[in-house]
């Protein structure tokens, strides 16, 4: 008991310590401008490994009520689940933009980060930006996808990887295409990956990968699709009989 009390006291002390340290830390920079709205410039819907930094920074812009960029406005970033920002607050540059590097939390799944700014009356304007943290299974899925899938399923070409998407007569679905993929069950997806399009009355241009990929690799691929899907995928789950 005593030890527990001591423990609580230590926690309380630590918390006060942590709070006071924050209070003593650098104060919010004094805003030189005030905007009415915050818009996203780039960096949303990225995927990175759990606990890792996103490849691209998140860039937001503060605009006034006429839509013109505001320089020197204070932008603050916040998110739950162990997301960290470098830096988490600051003033917009001369182009009205503020850039931060984001590291996601340690649990796989979707993270929503919030960027906010205040207008001169102290009213807050903000946006939510979604990012995805990939766990072990989704990371494996992304590796499998990079090798076998993206050349046809991703329409974007890079010098290192020319897309084959437009050379096909059937259009391969993007892996973020939640509108189509969310309607398919895990079993549906596993079937089309393993047996190919021809086996399911779809285009034979999708080859069967049942002998190429192992079961864990196929499952990993499906978990990646679920993680990236936009709109987000919601598992049917287990239905509660009483509801």
């Amino acid at each position, binding site marked *: *008991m005593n030890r*527990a009390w001591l*423990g609580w006291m230590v926690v309380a002390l630590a918390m006060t310590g942590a709070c006071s340290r924050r209070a003593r830390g650098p104060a919010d920079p004094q805003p030189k401008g005030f905007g009415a709205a915050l818009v996203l410039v780039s960096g949303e819907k990225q995927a990175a*490994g*759990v*606990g*890792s*930094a996103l*490849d691209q920074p998140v860039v937001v812009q503060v605009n006034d009520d006429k839509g013109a960029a505001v320089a020197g406005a204070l932008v603050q970033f916040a998110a739950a689940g162990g997301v960290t920002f470098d830096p988490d607050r600051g003033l917009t540059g001369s182009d009205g933009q503020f850039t931060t*590097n984001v*590291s996601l*939390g*340690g*649990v*796989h799944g979707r993270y929503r980060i919030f960027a906010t700014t205040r207008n001169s009356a102290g009213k807050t304007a903000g946006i939510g930006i979604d990012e995805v943290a990939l*766990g*072990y*299974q989704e*990371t*494996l899925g992304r*590796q*499998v996808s990079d*090798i*076998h899938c993206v*050349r*046809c399923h991703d329409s974007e070409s890079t*010098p290192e*990887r*020319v897309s*084959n998407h437009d*050379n*096909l007569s059937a259009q391969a679905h993007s892996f973020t295409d939640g509108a189509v993929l969310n309607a398919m069950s895990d079993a549906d997806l596993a079937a089309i990956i393993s047996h190919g*399009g*021809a086996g399911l009355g779809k*285009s*034979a*241009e999708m*080859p*069967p*990968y049942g*002998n*190429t990929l192992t079961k*864990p*690799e196929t*499952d*990993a691929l499906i*978990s990646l699709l679920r993680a990236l899907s936009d709109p987000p995928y919601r*598992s049917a*789950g*287990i*239905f*509660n*009989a*009483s*509801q």
Partner: protein
Amino acid sequence: MSLLKAIRSVWRYVFGDSASAFGSLSAALLILLAVVPAKDYFREWRGYQKQYLRLIRGRGDATSLNRRFQGGLQQIWMPELGVVDRCTTCHTALKEASLADVKTQPFRPHPAMPHKLTEFGCVICHRGQGAATTVEEAHSSTKSWEEPILPARYLEASCGQCHQDRLLGTPRLNQGRDTLARYGCVRCHTIKSPDGLIMSGSDAPPPLEHIAEKTTREWIAAWLKNPQAYAGSATMPNFQLADDETRDISAFLMAQSTPYPSLKGPVPAPAANQDAASLQEGTSLYGQSFCSSCHAMQNAAGMLVGGNLGPELTRAGSKVKAEWLVDWLTDPKTYDPDTRMPHYRLDSKQTGLLAGFLASKSDSDFLGTTQLAAATPAQIEHGKTLVLERGCASCHAINGVKKPENFAPDLTLVGSRPLEKILFAPGVPHTLADYIGAKIRQPRSFGSALKMPQYTLAPQQVDALETALLAQTQLAQTLPVTLRVPGPAPSNYRPAGKAGQLVDDMRCLSCHKINGHGGDMAPDLTWEGSSVQGAWLAGFLKNPNTLRPALIRRMPKFDVTDAEANILADYIMTVYQTPAFDRESIDSSRFAPADVEHGKELFYGKYACQSCHIVDPKKDKGYIGPTLTQVGARLTASWISHWLQDAQSLRPGTLEPVWKMNDEDARALTAFLMAQKNAPRKEVAQK
């Protein structure tokens, strides 16, 4: 006696007479006895178990969740792995997939993983103190257990304790190990895997024994000052040397340099005197020779274009001497017998043009107007001392300086380094991961006298390095041998005879791998002899071309003679054959036109091969696999047939799916493909 009396009176005063003394003592004893069960009753984990039972109460599958729930202290005990994990006492729902919507710890189900909880427990992957039964002791750094659980981003480190192979699911660990090998870390630090293999470098630091012939002292000094200022992609770290130190090291390096048997080729005109036409020709020659397969150069937009096998050439003209460059382009082996650069067999005119083009790639800002005064013997001596101190010879061959042994701390067990023995720089959190990260990012923050140089690495690279180093644990050494998954065995394979000399001369193994030895830029040739036809191979060696439309051609043309092409082709055809099947087992002349027709139907219908391959350039658009317009003149029928069955077993990692198609379909498709011998290249050429 008065003392005794005094004690008695105090006793009386506190407890009264004997009866009430007995009563109060009994009460005290009872309270004391009650403390023990009460302490147990209020244990942290009991609270979590009660919370869990409340959580599942209202759920649809509460009955089955309840049935699987086991109260009390839980433990996974595996003496042979040294695992005593009580994590499942609070993490009650690790295996309950139906709780996927639960986001609060400790009740989240474990995400999918490659191993079973009951086979490995928790701490082998997550670290922390498995036997602890309080949140604090299990997860955090305490007096009795310093190392807290491993942050999620380094989790792949734990895979690396057993896996020395390249797992598909551990990209960060793989990248970390590649970085250790590529950035010269392993040239100063020894890193051993549990099976005793010592990690070796994949970089090729140049020898400095003849450096005075290659470049100027001014360049050496400027490069030593900041290698990344000369080439952003340089892997040599910054040793943070003072100006007098770079002056003295460059003096010593010039002084120790000896001449090499120069070829004394014609020296090209200096860049300023190059006329525009020959500069243009040199530029084309750079492209035609596929120099950019290995070397990168910044383009006009400042983007780095090209490979990273050789050094970046953006400012090559500010570095190398024209005479040396001509020698080097004529035959690199005379300067560096171990170079990865092939002998290009250019004639003297081409050499001059190429050297002129490279000489024009200079940057007057880099060297500025620096002129170093002639070196004094004291400076040279000081330079040698610095070279010894900084361990330059760990990477570079230098006359009169031996490669130092155990120059830097052994990192074999760095992932288990006890925190109490680590001196943390101010501001660094007390965990091993943070310590390693700080060491990599800012080595000199631990003391300005430290030798470790400053690297220029992206945050992702540092994370990857930390992951690879955290895999080097004591546990990895003590885990049962049966759990170890070794990486590919190191191989020093070299082909023999005349063909071997040619392979050596053109440095084929810089890009191609044969029998486990060589680079991975180009296809593995171990079974090439089973795959291709001899006549095609000899023709390809004389005039290589890319087979895949989506790939940039990287194989240079070496101007091999007919005789050389035949020697190489004969050797490859004879020696590099798979034991799995006989190259001549299928006689393609026995295919009937009906087979070909049926194969065509299968190609365009059932298997839709045209989505990746092109047989008819007018119709097919497949852009991933090799073009098959002349495949009948390139591949053997039995290779095609086996390829259609199981391509992965012939070339692991190929993009071709494993079709496992039935013999009849494989035969028909082989017949169709073997019929593709015509050369529709002319039609393409007429465009």
